[in-house]
C-alpha cells in the first residue's frame, strides 16, 4: 500500500498534522518548519508525479488511469480505497500542491492559534488530495466532506467581518449540496452493475459496466450535478461564495477558491457526466442555462461590488460557472478548456486572494472606496495585482486566455442556436470581466493616494513575495506553454467523450 505514490498525497498531510500535534501551541518556528517541509514535500511529490506521468504516457502506456491501487475497505459494500490518476487528476494534484505551498507562505504570520489553524489547514489539504487521487466514489465523497468541514472553523475562528454567519452559511449550503450528492452516489452504487453482477463504487468499473438504468440516470444526474454544482458556485446556489470568501482568512480563501471549488467541477465530469452519460446528453441543456447565467450574472454582479473580496468572489462565480458551462458542452475541446479554466482560475484567484489579504493586512480595509493610488505605495503588490487582473480578463500569455479560448472554440462546435446563443453570452463575459477588473485596478492601485495614512505602509515582505511569485510563474507558465497540459487533458477526456458518444 505504501508503495503507491498516490497514497503519499494523503499520508504527508496526515504526517503534517501529527507533526503539528507535537508542536507547542505558539511555537511558531516549529509550526512553520513542519508546514514548509510538508508543503514542499507535497509540491515536490506532485511535480515528480507529473513528470513521471508524462514520461509513462510518452512511453505509450495508454491506460485510462495510472498508478492504480485498490485496497478493500468495507467488504460487505465492496468499498475500496481505490486510487488512480489520469492527466486531469495529476494536474489537479499539482495545482493543489502549488496552492497549499503558496497558502502556507501567505499565512506565515497567522494569529491567533497558529497550531490549530495549520491543523485544520492540513486536514483540508488531506481532503483535497484524497479527493483527486480517489477513483472510488465512497472514498471520493469522504475526502470531499473532509475538505469541506474545516472551512467552518477556519472561517469562523480566523476570519473577519460577519464570519460566524458566513461560515455557517457556507458550511450548510455546501453540506446541502453534498446531501444531494450522497443520494446520487447511492443511486449510482445500487445500479452500478447489471442484474446479478457485483455492485461497485469504483468509477472505472461503473463506467465500464454502464449499467445505470436510463430512467434512473436523469434523476441521479440531477442529484450529482447539483451536488457538485453547489461547490462549483452554480447559479442559484452560489451565494455562499461571496460571503464565505469575504470573511475567510487569506490562505483559506486561496485554498477554497483555488482548489476546493475545483472539486465541484472535477466531480461533475468524473461522476455526473462520465457515469451517467445518457442523462448528460439529455439534461445538459438545463444546466447550460444555469451555468450560462452564472457566467454573465457573476460578472455583472462583480461590477458594482465595493469590497475587494466580494468582487473576486463574484468573479469566481463567473469563472467557475464557465468551468461547468464548458463541461456541459460535452466535447473534448470544451471540456479540456474547462480543466484549463480550473487550473487557471485556481492559480489566479489564489493569487488574488493572497494579494487582497496582504493589502488588507496593511490598510485594514477592503473597501475600494477607501483606498487609492496604492501602486505608488506598494508597487510590488500593485504589479502582482495587475498581473492577476490581466490573467483574469484573459490576457494572452497568462493562463486565463488559454482556458477561455479553448472553451469558446470547443463550445462553438455545438451548432444549434441554443448552444451558440449561450456561447455568445458567455463570450460577452470577457468584456464585463475587463470592466470590473479595470474598475478595481483603477480605483485601488492607480490615481492619487486616497488616504494619506497609507503612505506609511510598506511593500511586500519576503514570504509574501515568495508566495505570489510562485503563483505568477505558474500562471505565466500555463499561459505561455499550454500545449503539453492541453494534450494531457485531451487524452484523459477520451474515455469520457467516448462514453458520451455511445450514449446518444
Amino acid at each position, binding site marked *: 500500500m505504501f508503495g503507491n505514490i498516490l497514497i503519499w498525497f494523503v499520508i504527508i498531510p496526515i504526517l503534517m498534522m501529527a507533526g503539528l500535534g507535537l508542536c507547542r501551541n505558539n511555537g511558531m518556528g516549529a509550526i512553520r518548519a513542519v508546514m514548509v517541509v510538508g508543503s514542499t514535500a507535497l509540491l515536490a511529490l506532485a511535480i515528480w508525479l507529473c513528470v513521471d506521468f508524462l514520461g509513462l504516457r510518452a512511453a505509450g502506456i495508454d491506460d485510462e488511469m495510472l498508478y492504480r491501487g485498490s485496497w478493500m475497505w*468495507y467488504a*460487505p*459494500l465492496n468499498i475500496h480505497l481505490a486510487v488512480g490518476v489520469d492527466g486531469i487528476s495529476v494536474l489537479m494534484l499539482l495545482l493543489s500542491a502549488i496552492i497549499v505551498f503558496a497558502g502556507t507562505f501567505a499565512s506565515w504570520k497567522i494569529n491567533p492559534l497558529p497550531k490549530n489553524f495549520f491543523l485544520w489547514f492540513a486536514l483540508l489539504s488531506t481532503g483535497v488530495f484524497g479527493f483527486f487521487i480517489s477513483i472510488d466514489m465512497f472514498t471520493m465523497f469522504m475526502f470531499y466532506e473532509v475538505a469541506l468541514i474545516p472551512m467552518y472553523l477556519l472561517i469562523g475562528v480566523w476570519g473577519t467581518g460577519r464570519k460566524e454567519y458566513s461560515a*455557517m452559511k457556507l458550511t450548510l449550503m455546501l453540506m446541502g449540496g453534498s446531501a444531494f450528492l450522497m443520494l446520487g452516489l447511492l443511486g449510482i452504487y445500487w445500479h452500478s452493475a447489471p442484474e446479478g453482477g457485483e455492485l461497485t463504487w469504483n468509477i472505472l468499473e461503473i463506467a465500464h459496466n454502464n449499467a445505470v438504468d436510463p430512467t434512473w440516470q436523469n434523476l441521479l444526474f440531477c442529484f450529482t450535478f447539483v451536488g457538485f454544482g453547489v461547490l462549483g458556485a452554480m447559479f442559484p446556489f452560489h451565494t455562499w461564495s461571496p460571503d464565505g470568501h469575504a470573511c475567510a482568512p487569506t490562505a483559506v480563501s486561496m485554498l477554497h477558491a483555488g482548489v476546493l471549488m475545483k472539486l465541484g467541477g472535477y466531480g461533475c465530469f468524473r461522476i455526473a457526466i462520465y457515469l451517467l452519460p445518457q442523462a448528460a446528453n439529455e439534461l445538459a441543456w438545463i444546466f447550460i442555462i444555469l451555468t450560462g447565467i452564472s457566467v454573465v450574472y457573476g460578472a455583472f454582479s462583480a461590477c458594482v461590488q465595493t469590497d475587494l473580496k466580494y468582487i473576486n468572489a463574484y468573479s469566481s462565480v463567473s469563472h467557475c460557472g464557465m468551468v461547468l458551462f464548458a463541461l456541459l458542452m460535452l466535447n473534448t475541446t470544451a471540456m479540456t478548456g474547462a480543466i484549463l479554466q480550473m487550473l487557471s482560475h485556481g492559480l489566479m484567484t489564489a493569487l488574488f486572494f493572497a494579494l487582497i489579504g496582504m493589502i488588507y493586512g496593511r490598510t485594514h480595509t477592503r473597501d475600494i472606496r477607501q483606498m487609492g493610488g496604492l501602486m505608488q505605495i506598494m508597487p510590488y503588490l500593485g504589479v502582482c495585482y495587475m498581473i492577476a487582473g490581466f490573467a483574469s480578463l484573459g490576457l494572452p500569455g497568462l493562463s486565463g486566455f488559454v482556458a477561455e479560448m479553448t472553451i469558446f472554440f470547443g463550445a462553438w462546435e455545438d451548432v444549434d442556436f441554443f448552444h451558440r446563443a449561450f456561447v455568445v453570452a458567455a463570450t460577452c463575459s470577457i468584456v464585463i470581466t475587463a470592466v470590473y477588473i479595470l474598475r478595481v485596478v483603477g480605483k485601488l492601485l492607480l490615481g492619487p493616494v486616497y488616504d494619506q495614512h497609507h503612505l506609511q505602509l510598506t511593500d511586500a515582505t519576503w514570504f509574501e513575495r515568495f508566495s505570489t511569485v510562485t503563483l505568477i510563474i505558474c500562471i505565466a507558465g500555463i499561459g505561455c506553454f499550454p500545449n503539453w497540459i492541453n494534450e494531457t487533458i485531451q487524452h484523459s477526456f477520451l474515455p469520457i467523450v467516448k462514453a458520451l458518444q455511445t450514449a446518444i
Partner: protein
Amino acid sequence: MDYSQFGAMMPELIILGIFLLVFLFDTFTPDNGKKFLTPFTTVLFLLGTVAIWIVPGCSESVFGGMYVDSPACKAMKCILNVGVFICMLEAAKWVETDMVIIRKGEFYELLLVTLFGMYLMISARHFLLFIIGLESASLPIAALVAFNKHKYESHEAAIKYILTAVFSSAILLMGLSFVYALSGGSLYFSDIAASFNGGMMSTMLLVALAFVLAGIGFKLSLVPFHLWTGDVYQGAPTAVTAYLSVVSKGAAAFAFFVIFVQVFGQVYSQAWEWMLYAVIIATITVGNLFAMRQKNMKRFMAFSSVSQAGYIMLGVMAADTLGLASMMFYILVYVVSNLGAFAIISMIEDRTGLVSMDDYKGLHKTNPYIAVAMTLAMFSLAGIPPFAGFFSKILIFTSVTGSNSMALYMLVLIALINTIISLYYYLLVVKAMWISADEPKIQSFGTGACEKVALTLCVGGILLLGLVSCVYQWLVNVVGETFILPGLN
C-alpha cells in the same frame, strides 16, 4: 425442566452475578470500605464484559424457543456493555459527591438491573420474556432519574418518566393483546411470524402494530412518543441521562428490529413500512427542529438523540442483514460519540454547575483538550468524515436504499437534508467553544483518571471506528451467521 438450559443464558447470568456481588459488597462492607465500591464495580464489570465476549454463545434457542443467545445478540450486548462501562467511568466522580455517595451502591445496582432487562429484551423470542425484559429495563430507570433527591428537576423528570412509561406499557400490552388475538394462540415470535401471511390485513392488525410501535417507540423516543425525552434528560442526573440516551436506546432499537422484521416481516409492505416511514421522518425532523433552539446542553442532547433515533430506525426500514449490521454499527458509533459529549457535559456540570451552551463560550482558551474532544464528538454526531459518525450514517443510508425503491430514496433524501439542520446545531456548540469572543466562564480544570479513560475511549472510538472497517465487517458477519431473515412482503 432442564436447568442446564440456564447455562445458555451466560451473559445474563454474568450480569446477574456481578449484580449480586456488587449488592453484597455494598451491603456488607463497612463504611470505610465503600470507597472501593466504584473500582470494584467497574473492574468487575469490565471482566464481565470480557467474559461475555469470550464465552462462546450457544446459538440454539432454549426454553422452548423463548430465549436465544445468537452471535448477533451477543454482539449487541457487548456494544451495550461498552456503553455501560463508559457510563460507569463517567459517573465515577459524580457518585462520590456528597448527596449521592451514600446511595452509590444503589446506582450501580440499578444500572446493572436495567442492563439485565435489556439483555432479556435482546434475547427474548417470546413476548412474555420480552415484556419482562422491557419493564425491568425501564422501571429502575425511573428510580435512577429521581436520583438527585435534592433537586426538584430530578423529581419532575421522574414523575414524567414513570407516568409515560406506564402509559406506554399499557399501550404496548394492549397492542400485544391484539397481536395475540391475531396469532395462532401463541406468543412465540416464530409462531406469530408463521401465522401471519401476506394476505391478512385488518384494522385490528394495524392498531396492534401501531400500538406495539408506540410501546417500543417510547423507549427509543420516536416522535410523537418522545415528549418525555427533553424533560427527563434535562432533569435526570447527567450520568443517568447519558445512560438513558445511548444504552437504553440501543437495546430497544435491536428489539424493535427483531420484533418488526422477524415477527411482522410478513406484513412489512402492507402495514408497518409506511408507519415507520412516517415516524422516521417525523422523528428526525421534529427532533432537529427542537434541538436547534435549545440552550441547555442536556436538553439539547435530548432532542439531538431523538433525531438520532430516527436515523437508527432507518436500519429497520432496510430490514435486511445489512440493515441490522448498519444499525448496530450506528448504535456503537452513537454510543461513543454521545457518551463523549456527555462525558464533557457532566464534567463541566460537576465542576461548575453550568449546563448552558452560552457557558461554553471560549472553552478552547481554558480547556483546549476538552474543547477538541467535544468538537470531535459533535462532528461525529453530525456525520462529518473522517470521524466515525460519517461512516455509520452512510452505511445505514446505503443499506436503506438497497431495495432501489424510490420511496426509500426520498426517505434518505429527507434524512440527508435533516443532517444539514443537525449540522447547524452541532456547529452551534463548536461555535460557542471556538469562535465566540466572549471571556470564558469556565475556568481551567483537571480531569480525573476515570474521566480521562472514558474520554480516551470515546475519542478513540470516534477516530477509529470508521476508519477501521473490521468492526463493521464483524457485525455483518455475526448478523449474517445469525439471522436468516424472512423474505419481506
